[in-house]
């Protein structure tokens, strides 16, 4: 078990096996390479990617496959292969949600730059689907 400090969730104890290693970090945050996925609330469509090394750094994530029909099918064969480097186990694909301060209803999801997590060897990376035509600020609230 590992104790980690977080700004949003206080001190947490997490199993080492839950830690996901991003060799290149996440774009814009190359130094932070270790994260843990935290549930937002039971049954929620959202979850959190909390940095293990930086207590203040966390991202809200949601499943792009639920936001956009045919999210994977709509990709070119080359871009599909970016998502599945391993060809072994289906990767977990999540996308980062941006919530403008004070305007929760204007939240958007980054469909162009998903996070791909290999659950078998607990690694992750951010992929840029530049030719997909997908929006890096796709609105997801229906209010």
């Amino acid at each position, binding site marked *: 078990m590992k104790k980690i400090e977080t700004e949003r969730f206080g001190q947490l104890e997490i199993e080492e096996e839950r830690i996901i290693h991003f060799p290149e970090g996440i774009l814009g945050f190359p130094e932070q390479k270790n994260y843990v996925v935290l549930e937002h*609330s039971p049954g929620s469509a959202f979850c959190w990617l909390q940095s293990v090394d930086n207590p203040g750094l966390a*991202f809200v994530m949601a499943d792009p496959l*639920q936001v956009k029909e045919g999210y994977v099918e709509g990709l070119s064969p080359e871009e599909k292969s970016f998502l599945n480097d391993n060809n072994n186990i289906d990767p977990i694909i999540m996308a980062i*949600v941006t*919530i403008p*301060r004070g305007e929760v209803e204007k939240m958007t999801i980054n469909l162009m*730059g998903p996070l791909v997590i290999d659950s078998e060897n607990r690694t992750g990376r951010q992929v840029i689907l530049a030719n997909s035509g997908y929006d*890096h600020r796709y609105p997801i609230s229906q209010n």
Partner: protein
Amino acid sequence: MLVLTRKVEESITIGSRITVTVLGLKGNQVRLGIKAPRELPVNRTEVYESIVEENINASNAPVDLNKLNEKINLNLKKNGA
């Protein structure tokens, strides 16, 4: 920044595994061919920077998001629909 001048069909080699070749010119547009190992993604800089900027914006998620589920109806496709 290292500045080199190349003619069409000439290349530059970065490290030992990356090659950039000038394939052609048309007006003020340059066509570049890039050979790089698969694990090094190549992107137009403005696309790369837009993802960096969006990640930075996203990292400022408000701390208290307890109302996230109550207020928002996510535009989600229902499973099996």
